[in-house]
């Protein structure tokens, strides 16, 4: 099993993400890319800014990838999130997983991107022709008892 995750301000090297997965034990590799869309809620988007709590985001992304490997039997998981100012069409997030059988690759890949949206400490501010705003997000999972 291998896990490779990182947070970067540089354009995401999708080839590197993909090549971090796959082995003779695998029958499937799945690559998901999230990209910046030009429209949201009927407003024209001109660009996007991503902010992160960098050190914690690195830690949480690694945890999510590890959980995907343990829970869904992924042999390799690679996940990257970009921060800073992005343009329409830029890749903001990339997830690649490899598994022995294809069904698990879809399940694990879907779980990683959903989980990342639920708890990765990253925020996005959409820019429009006439202003900008921080997008509504998910309340992160806060434990009920103190650590």
């Amino acid at each position, binding site marked *: 099993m291998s896990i490779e995750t990182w947070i970067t301000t540089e354009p995401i090297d999708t080839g590197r993400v993909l090549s971090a997965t796959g082995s003779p034990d695998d029958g499937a590799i799945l690559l998901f890319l*999230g990209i910046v869309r030009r429209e949201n809620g009927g407003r024209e988007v001109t660009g996007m800014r*991503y*902010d*992160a*709590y960098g*050190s*914690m*985001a690195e*830690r949480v992304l690694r945890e999510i990838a590890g959980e995907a490997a343990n829970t869904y039997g992924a042999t390799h998981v690679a996940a990257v*999130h970009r921060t800073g100012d992005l343009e329409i069409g830029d890749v*903001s*997030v990339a997830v690649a997983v490899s598994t022995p059988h294809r069904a698990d690759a879809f399940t694990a890949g879907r779980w990683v*991107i959903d989980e*990342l*949206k*639920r*708890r*990765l*400490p*990253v*925020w*996005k*501010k959409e820019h429009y022709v006439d202003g900008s705003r*921080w*997008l*509504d*997000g*998910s*309340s*992160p*999972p*806060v*434990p*009920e*008892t*103190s*650590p």
Partner: protein
Amino acid sequence: MRVRVLLFALYRDLAGAPEIEIEVPAGATARDAVRIVRGRGPAFERLPDQPAIAVNEVYANLETVLSDGDEVALIPPVAGG
């Protein structure tokens, strides 16, 4: 004891500061830290009184007891992807 409080995204814009160092009494909880931060002036008062938080990079609840040198982050609803 001193703790470092980090603000991100919307909360950073509301408070007009990325971080603030505060003095808290021994035995103080994260909830106490939030109260002290919000008492630092009108801009800080705009922060929510019960935000999600992380203590030393781990999600925690507001009853978490703090130690000297802890890093407390106020976490707005997350929106990665």
